[in-house]
């Protein structure tokens, strides 16, 4: 080994005797333990690894450690000198500019380098300086604000009271801005071995494994090569109890390129050095089922034996006589929509470790759903659920993609078999090639209207490509027909769907479960019919908006909280002005054209027609400390803060009084998964009930009436009831395993009913509604689209925390914009973050949020959900705006420049 490389990190001298070509990211993280610097791609594309070298921002993943010899390196850990947050760190917190927090260290370092030169940067200067860092959660606007105003001067710190309805900065932000929060790849036992999966390069093939003796001889650092035969329990997993169709390690047969075949376990250098072609795998390649068309063709090869038509699931909603409606229609419009795979592109690739603790297995990994993970791991390792402990790490974005297991079964099996801790961190290309995507879709839909311009019928069919494995395919097949007609009164409805297997990347859950794809269709139809009738698109939607008392396509009466009309009204003034402005601008000629579009959506909160309870507990310790035990996982959306606000309100204490334990399946109760926009509504309600239950127990103990005042003190609780006062000495009470003397529990399962064969019933307890408008500018010569502004009106029932709600809306809009304009995952071709494009700082326009609060009586303090609703209307609004600008409505997304150009050319509208 060469002489040690000496440099300064955060003003501390260090000397590292490591290979000089080692990436600085690895030197910082693995050799120096400074895991605040994150790795999202190792390729310069995400900027999560941004550090300062001699004051300049660089990607640590592109810097050989040799090149920082003699230099000063500053990482996020160096920002909060002496424990006090730097102004930019505080601003990130204050402006809600960190959600999951995985991009935050990179943002902070890029921001710090800017602020060192420029104390009052403009928005454009911030965008230029931070443009090399990607964020998938926030939509960037809050970050721009935070950097612009970081040095504005003294700001009063948040008071930490945070009653429901206040914009309390997130309670878990401190560790996100200091780099202290541990994400999946950040910690593992020192003696952990590394696991690397060897994946199929073929979309469909049979294979035979030879002996690994030679490999072991060549690589002494190789501890084990795991194959399907090593899986102790069932070698299969999947979301649905009756469809466990995906193997942990393939058994002689692969169904998509990227499927895990064997797992190498050993020291890091060894598993990285072994080339895939050194493995004794004899492939027999077969022609893949490469598309939905091929899958549905008569005589198609089967992706799964026993699925005779390659159809995984079908969905159907039918109400009224659709054929009669079309036969009698005065107007009929028809649309097709095509969408591709969309990648979640969370900045944190999947990572974690497992260790065997006696006869239990512990998995410490990023996830959206600890309790489902627990049950899957139990099956795969062949244990009871009680023998599995899931300890979620910080999760650097999920958006549905971390609802499926990834590294967890691999490391669990390896740790179980080898009796040693085993860790695994996916590379970016591996994450993209192997984990689930948004379902590609192709949709045909029709609308009928009578002579008075009233919609009388709606017909819809969508094929959704579920890829090689089921994952959440049945959910998509169920959810789509229910939402297909949009948030409108449509008369007779027939909507059907199919989830179709192919030999491509599995599609799973992604913010909206197929509804964003369906919304492209219903909104295109609404625009087309409005145009046919020469009606204003916004007014036409208002005419048909679902309102309180209306009955949905599944026959459910909306008795409460149906705020679509209020959302549309909230846009009306901007809409009228923006449409007029666009018209005036377009009158001036030239290649540029402006347009304004509107998109609406509705979204059922929680699982479809299925029980999906949450249980929450809040404990009071002997010392008088309150702890909320929350199984609801915060993957950036803010549930830690929201649960605490709700529970604190129910208890009548400030938020700061609550300590938080989240996710650990040994310490919390099952609060279901962080998906379907259900946490605020379902788990939030449970948190409210838990708070009320704790109070009730204390009152009972004190023999006090329901209106008594409870004051929590050190080691004691004072209860005042109509002049009498009682003090409970907590130190004299029995404690449970958590050290608590009182525990309140709340459970909530939103009321739904099963759907009949025609999809009739009440699939959800409540629905969110929204309308967004987008203003765009199209360059008709180049086919490029720039989104100039978005106004988003959302009926959230009640905004428990407006700062977090706005954050969700911004982030959803950014993803909707990506879906509309640039994101397209092509298996084997766009498997990194420079070929797969997500919006950057310069792509997300200013966003204005209008919150509509039409309270939902079932929800906590009237709240519903926002996570998925935020994304759904954006792409339709942008497409409507493109149509308004150019007269051309793209049927397929993403609307890449060359595609729009071809459409304009075909319509004779290129300038």
């Amino acid at each position, binding site marked *: 080994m060469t002489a040690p490389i000496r440099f300064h990190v955060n003003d501390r001298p260090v000397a590292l005797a490591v*290979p*000089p*070509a080692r990436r600085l990211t690895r030197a910082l993280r693995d050799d120096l333990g400074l895991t605040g610097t994150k790795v999202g*791609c*190792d*390729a*310069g*594309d995400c*900027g999560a690894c941004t550090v300062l070298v001699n004051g*300049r*921002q*660089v*990607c640590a*993943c*592109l*810097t*050989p450690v*040799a*090149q920082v010899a003699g230099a000063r390196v500053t990482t996020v850990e160096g920002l909060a000198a002496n424990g006090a947050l730097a102004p930019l760190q505080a601003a990130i917190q204050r402006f809600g500019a960190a959600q999951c927090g995985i991009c935050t260290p990179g943002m902070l370092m*890029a921001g710090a380098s800017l602020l060192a030169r420029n104390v009052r940067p403009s928005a454009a200067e911030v*965008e*230029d*300086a*931070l*443009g*090399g*860092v*990607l964020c998938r959660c926030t939509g960037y606007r809050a970050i721009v604000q935070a950097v612009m105003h970081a040095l504005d001067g003294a700001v009063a710190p948040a008071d930490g009271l945070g009653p429901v309805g206040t914009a309390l900065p997130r309670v878990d932000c401190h560790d996100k801005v200091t780099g202290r929060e541990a994400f999946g790849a950040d910690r593992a036992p020192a003696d952990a071995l590394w696991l690397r999966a060897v994946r199929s390069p073929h979309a469909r093939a049979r294979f035979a494994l030879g002996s690994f003796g030679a490999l072991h001889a060549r690589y002494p650092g190789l501890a084990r090569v795991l194959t399907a035969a090593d899986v102790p329990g069932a070698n299969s997993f999947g979301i649905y109890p009756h469809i466990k169709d995906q193997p942990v390690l393939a058994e002689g047969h692969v169904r998509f390129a990227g499927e895990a075949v064997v797992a190498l376990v050993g020291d890091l*250098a060894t598993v*990285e*050095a072994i*080339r895939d072609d050194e493995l004794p795998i004899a492939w027999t390649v077969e022609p893949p089922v490469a598309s939905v068309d091929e899958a549905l063709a008569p005589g198609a090869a089967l992706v799964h034996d026993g699925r005779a038509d390659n159809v995984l699931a079908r969905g159907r909603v039918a109400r009224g006589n659709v054929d009669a409606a079309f036969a009698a229609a005065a107007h009929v419009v028809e649309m097709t929509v095509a969408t591709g795979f969309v990648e979640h592109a969370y900045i944190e690739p999947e990572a974690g470790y497992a260790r065997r603790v006696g006869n239990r297995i512990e998995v410490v990994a990023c996830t959206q759903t600890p309790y489902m993970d627990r049950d899957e791991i139990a099956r795969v390792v062949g244990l009871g659920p009680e023998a599995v402990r899931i300890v979620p790490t910080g999760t650097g974005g999920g958006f549905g993609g971390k609802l499926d297991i990834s590294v967890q079964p691999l490391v669990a099996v390896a740790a179980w078999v080898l009796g040693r801790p085993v860790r695994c961190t996916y*590379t*970016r*290309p*591996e994450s993209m090639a192997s984990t689930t995507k948004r379902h590609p879709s192709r949709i045909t839909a029709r609308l009928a209207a009578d002579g008075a311009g009233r919609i009388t019928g709606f017909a819809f069919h969508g094929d959704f490509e579920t890829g090689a494995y089921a994952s959440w395919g049945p959910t998509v097949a169920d959810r789509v027909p229910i939402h297909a007609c949009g948030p409108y009164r449509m008369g007779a409805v027939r909507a059907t769907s199919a989830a179709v297997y192919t030999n491509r990347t599995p599609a799973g859950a992604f913010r909206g479960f197929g509804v964003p794809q369906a919304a492209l269709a219903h909104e295109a139809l609404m625009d087309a019919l409005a145009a046919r009738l020469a009606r204003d698109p916004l007014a036409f939607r208002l005419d048909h908006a679902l309102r309180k008392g209306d009955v949905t396509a599944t026959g459910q009466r909306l008795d409460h909280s149906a705020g679509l009309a209020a959302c549309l009204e909230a846009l009306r003034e901007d809409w009228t002005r923006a449409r007029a402005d666009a018209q005036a601008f377009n009158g001036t000629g030239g290649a540029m054209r402006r347009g304004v579009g509107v998109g609406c959506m509705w979204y059922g909160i929680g699982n479809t027609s299925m029980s999906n309870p949450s249980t929450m507990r809040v404990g009071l310790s002997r010392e008088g400390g309150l702890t909320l035990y929350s199984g609801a996982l915060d993957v950036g959306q803010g549930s830690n803060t929201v649960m605490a606000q709700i529970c604190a309100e129910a208890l009548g204490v400030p938020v700061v009084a609550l300590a938080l334990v989240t996710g650990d399946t040994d310490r919390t109760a099952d609060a279901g998964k962080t998906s379907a926009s259900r946490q605020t509504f379902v788990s939030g309600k449970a948190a409210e009930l838990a708070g009320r239950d704790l109070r009730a127990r204390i009152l009972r103990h004190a023999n006090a009436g329901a209106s008594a005042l409870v004051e929590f003190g050190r080691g004691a609780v004072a209860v005042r009831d109509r002049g009498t006062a009682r003090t409970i000495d907590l130190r004299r009470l029995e404690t449970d395993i958590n050290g608590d003397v009182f525990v309140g529990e709340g459970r909530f399962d939103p009321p739904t009913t099963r759907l009949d064969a025609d999809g009739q019933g009440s699939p959800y307890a409540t629905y969110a509604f929204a309308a967004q408008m987008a203003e765009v500018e199209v360059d008709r*010569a*180049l*086919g*490029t689209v720039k989104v100039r502004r978005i106004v988003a009106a959302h009926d959230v029932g009640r905004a428990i925390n407006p700062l977090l709600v706005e954050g969700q809306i911004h982030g959803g809009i950014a993803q909707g914009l990506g879906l509309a*304009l*640039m994101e397209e995952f*092509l298996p084997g*071709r*766009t498997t*990194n973050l*420079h*070929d797969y*494009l997500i*919006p*950057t*700082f*310069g*792509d997300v326009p200013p966003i204005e949020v209008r919150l509509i609060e039409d309270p939902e009586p079932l929800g906590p303090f009237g709240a519903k959900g926002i996570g998925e609703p935020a994304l759904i209307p954006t792409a339709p609004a942008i497409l409507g705006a493109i149509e308004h600008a150019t007269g051309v409505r793209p049927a397929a997304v993403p609307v*890449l*420049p*060359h595609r729009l*150009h*071809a459409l304009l050319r075909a319509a004779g509208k*290129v300038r």
Partner: protein
Amino acid sequence: MASYERPTELDHALRLLAERSRVVLAGGTDHFPARVGTAVDEDVLDVSAIAGLRGIVATRDGWCIGATTTWTDVLEADLPAQFDGLRQAAREVGGVQVQNRGTLGGNLCNASPAADGIPALMALDAEVELRDAKGALRVPLDNFVLGNRRTARRPDQLVTAIHVPRLAEGTRTTFLKLGARRYLVISIVMVAATLEPGAGGTVGRARVAIGACSPVARRLGALEAVLAGRPMGPDLGAAAEALHLADLATIDDVRGSAAYRREAALILVRRALDRLAA
């Protein structure tokens, strides 16, 4: 076992290269992305510490840009207006993190069809200085880049500098890049253009180069010939026609179809010329 050399003297570096073939590493911004998730056993020659290889100096007839000069160095250097186009290109290479480390030499040697530096420097008539242990030679940039990731560099040579001639007083240059998003974008098409003033408000010499359209960036000689002698004015771009781009072997890929690239390139050429001549 892999070796890693980081000499401070150019002669030393060239001797090491004469010994055996080594992977040259400058800013690493192309090097590391090609090595994600794998440990590569290779001998590395790190040129980042070589004295005199970084920085821009004025010479008798122009400028000499050291091979390890970064994009940020270009942006911060005190250079005349003929470098406006190169500066615009520099600002568009990756994000600031990449501009701070990525070098011009690396950009040329990596020879990606989408390398922004190549058309920008072609439109300046740049020459590449290649050096081995025995001596140096200069090749015009057009002759240096041979294909997609192929150059005229032999394994025992380093690129040591890029030479840019001083163009006529009043020369204007520009660079336009088309991509599907705002930052961190690989070009679908980029155009670099240079107009040297001629007599009486006319175009003297024009240079127009197109990148990302074909495996190697190309100068549009036919168009340049047509432009010479035309009056400067805001509609100069109208002189550009599809036939001037006819012999581009246009790329067809996920970022853009070949037909689109041809049309977009023509639009960008016209806009670039209009802007320069206005």
